[in-house]
């Protein structure tokens, strides 16, 4: 059917329906236009700050003070990138952050998978209470426990065991080391571990029970069943948990600020948190104490800094977008 014929048929049908078809068509077109505007506007709302940061980051200091320049820089420059890179201390900081995030995410995913499986498939005394505790770990604001934890790791001891082993009667001083936080992650006490346990539990609950029963009948032990039968199927969910854990560790500054002091353990997140102060300090060291860093300038450095911190995350997000989105819908979060 050609276009003209189709148009003719449409008017014919419209005449027969007494104008109903045309009204319906107009309504649906108007609706989709309205929807498109709305969706575009709301998308713009989310992306705009990113675009603005990107534009600002390529300006020279001159452009920043020029009120006629809103977003497109007049003098293109990458100077702010080199400044931010210098303040970050470049590759070592990023490599350290990367290594730490991978280690933390791995430990969290492994321990939370085990625990989630235990909660999903086994009956044991106090199970409901323990799962209530999992939810409790989510509710406790990190600020409540961060101080005691920090002090605790200054003299770390588990019921006096370590003190007896070393013979000094005192615990270990683990402040400023990576071990405490890694231990916490391995023991499901890291940032948002409760959420990962919950997600893994939901996943295992949705797996058919017949899988394990068949394995048991064939003489598979409990551990082997878990590792050989259930773990391969849980890989997508584990990847999602890993990604979440990675992103949240990369950007975390509640725990990082306490456990990884700046200058000895530079991380991208803690550096970014202080980048304005660092920039100010650098300028004061160079031009004397009286130097006042312009707001717009420090703002630009901060924008560039956050863009640099975001780039690895955006790459991961673009590659693994499906994993992120589907994990939440697949886990079929239900009460």
């Amino acid at each position: 059917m050609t276009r003209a014929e189709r148009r003719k048929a449409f008017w014919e049908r419209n005449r027969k329906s007494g104008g109903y078809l045309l009204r319906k068509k107009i309504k649906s077109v108007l609706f989709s236009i309205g929807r498109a505007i709305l969706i575009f506007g709301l998308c713009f709302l989310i992306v705009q700050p990113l675009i603005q940061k990107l534009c600002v980051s390529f300006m020279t200091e001159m452009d920043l003070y020029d009120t006629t320049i809103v977003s497109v820089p007049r003098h293109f420059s990458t100077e702010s990138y080199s400044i931010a890179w210098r303040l970050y201390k470049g590759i070592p900081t990023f490599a350290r952050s990367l290594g730490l995030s991978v280690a933390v995410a791995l430990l969290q995913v492994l321990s939370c998978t085990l625990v989630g499986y235990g909660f999903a498939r086994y009956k044991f005394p106090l199970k409901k209470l323990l799962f209530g505790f999992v939810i409790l770990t989510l509710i406790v604001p990190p600020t409540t426990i961060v101080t005691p934890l920090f002090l605790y790791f200054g003299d770390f001891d588990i019921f006096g065991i370590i003190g007896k082993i070393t013979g000094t009667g005192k615990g270990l001083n683990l402040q400023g080391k990576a071990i405490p936080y890694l231990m916490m992650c391995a023991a499901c006490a890291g940032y948002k571990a409760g959420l990962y346990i919950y997600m893994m539990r939901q996943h295992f609950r949705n797996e058919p029970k017949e899988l394990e029963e068949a394995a048991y009948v064939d003489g598979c032990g409990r551990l082997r069943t878990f590792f050989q039968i259930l773990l391969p199927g849980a890989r997508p969910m584990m990847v999602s948990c890993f990604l979440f854990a990675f992103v949240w560790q990369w950007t975390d500054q509640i725990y990082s600020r306490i456990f990884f002091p700046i200058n000895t353990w530079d991380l991208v997140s803690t550096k970014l948190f202080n980048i304005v102060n660092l920039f100010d300090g650098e300028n004061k060291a160079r031009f004397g104490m009286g130097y006042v860093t312009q707001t717009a300038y420090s703002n630009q450095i901060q924008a560039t800094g956050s863009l640099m911190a975001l780039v690895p995350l955006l790459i991961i997000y673009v590659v693994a977008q499906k994993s992120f989105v589907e994990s939440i819908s697949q886990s079929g979060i239900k009460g």
Partner: protein
Amino acid sequence: MESEKTILDNVAETAGQAGDAAMAAAEAVSEDALDVLNAAEAEADATADALWQNADAAAEMAAEAVDAANETVTDGGVATKKAKSASVKSPKRKSKNLARGNAIAGLLFVLPFIIGFIIFLVYPLSMSVRMSLNKVSATSNGLSFVPVGFWKPGSNFYKIFRDEKDFIEAFVNELKRMLLFVPGILVFSFFMATLLNQEFKGRTVVRAIYFLPVILASGVFLGLDANNPLINNVKEVMRAENSFSNITNTLEDILLTGETGNKFFQYVIDIVGQVYDIAMASGIQIIVFLSGLQTIPPSMYEAAKMEGCTGWESFWKITWPLIKAMVLVNIVYTLIDFFTRTDSALMKLINDTLLIRFEYGKVAAMSWAYFIVIAAVLGVSALFFSRGVYYND
């Protein structure tokens, strides 16, 4: 030896009987010892010393056996206990055995969490309770605690609620913001989920963008502007100067000059004014609603349409009942997310008290007051919204 078997096999045996049987066993043992003695006498050729040593040892053994038997008589329960534990291993109770094995395996799987919970959560929490009830000061050899009690002048809780104006103000503001934000986030994310559930070109891209805030509004990025004192100054100047009229301001004026519904309009306008923050905080909620919407079979809507249901009716009769479980999940998630954010004025106050003024006791009291209120709000809203939730499975 047979008498021992009788003990083990017979579960219902009374303590006295068990004792008797044990006595018999002891007698049997002493008889053995006598045999040894007899044998020793028969072998007269052997050296006398060794012989007498053997005999001594045998006699000792016999005496011990008798002692043991006496003990069993006085504490007959031991024998019955033994008998019970033996009976568990019998094949009749295999299913019970399996259940116990499963319980142990389950506990082993969950063990990392139990350990972590005790060491890294219960301990810090109890320490923070202790700190909140003490005047804590740092000395050269650790912290020193001076008890100040819970509620009297000079105690931490008294200080933060009576003396500290900042805390109360920040606290009340936070609760007010909650009333503004949580409904805003829920409505917005539900609205967006219904939009994204429809078919249109470029839907995947739009979805990706809407989920982006999960990254953009996490951790350090969220607190950046709040941490930048320079930007805050500029913002205030801009707000003061930004008084020229535009469409939104005019509309706001018109709506607010009306007599009725003033407060409601103010509320809506406040929400709209925060739309950026709301959009940034509703990434996960949108996905949760979206997944909920996608589990509703389209045939339901078709059937409703055939029966003459309008969109409005089918929303309240189909969508809402089926999505209610998601609403509950989202309320809980949003509340938790809202309260554990790091960029609120209250968190800033707590951090300042901790990192600048080093008042550990006060910080602990603040965190606890905050935590208890969170738990209360969560509990009440979960109770309120969990009524009449329909589960699909």
